[in-house]
């Protein structure tokens, strides 16, 4: 059982950190993937336009 207020705060912060790290980490991962794909798409589109112009 939890004895002190400091101990309680420690476990609650630990839980908040776990939720934040997992949830926040996943969100950051999604945003990074989105940005990387947008950049890749822009690059591919520019490449396709160059190919078209070269013909």
């Amino acid at each position, binding site marked *: *059982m*939890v004895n002190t207020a400091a*101990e*309680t705060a420690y*476990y*609650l912060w*630990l*839980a908040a950190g*776990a*939720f934040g790290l*997992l*949830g926040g980490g*996943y969100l950051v991962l*999604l945003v990074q*993937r*989105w940005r990387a*794909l*947008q950049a*890749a*798409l822009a690059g*591919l*589109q520019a*490449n*396709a336009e160059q*190919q078209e112009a070269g013909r």
Partner: protein
Amino acid sequence: MQKNTGLKILSVSSVLLLVAALYMVFVYAPLEAVMGAVQRVFYFHVAAGWVGALAFFVAFAAGLLHLRRGSLLADRVALCSTEIGLVFMSMNIVSGAIWARPIWNTWWTWDPRLTTATITWLLYAAYLLLRQGIEDPQRRARFAAVYGVIAFASVPLTFAAIRIFRSIHPVVIGAGAPGAKGSFDMTPAMRDTLLFSVLVFTVLYGTLLWHRLRLEQLSERVAQMRLRLLQG
């Protein structure tokens, strides 16, 4: 990709609902007499477990749909739902261990509920690995659908584990297990908080699924464009 107003509204609503849920957990819900404030972990712990189960059920249903109709959209839904389910299942397992340390005096014990939850987590992590190993999209979708349907058996087993086997994990819904450590009787305010947290996490799941599906759509667009360029 075009701007999506519906998704924007849903995203903002999810954040506001999450803030409201935090208020209910830390202010509205009363302090539990024996466990104290550590018991407050329970509201999001259960909600995360619920979303994990829901996400795996969606993956199961999408897998069946793919096997019946060959829909690649269903396969995409299964993949996205499984990924989100794993995140929530991880939250559930980790928060449970943090609660267990002061209540059970240990971070982890091979209790039936903890064991079946870990098996479920591993099965779905393996689902993502399996997908990485197959190149052909049709074949990958079929294999993943069959695997997803079979793996889902672990979800009801995890739910029932504390009701079938002797366990120290508390039972929240239905009759409590006699050997459970950390059980408590919920007051109406506690029940309201739990139900609201479950609702908020469900909305959060819907929002994340929508975002994740858009990401998958973009990923496919990039793959198609790359293929078109390679073919000249």
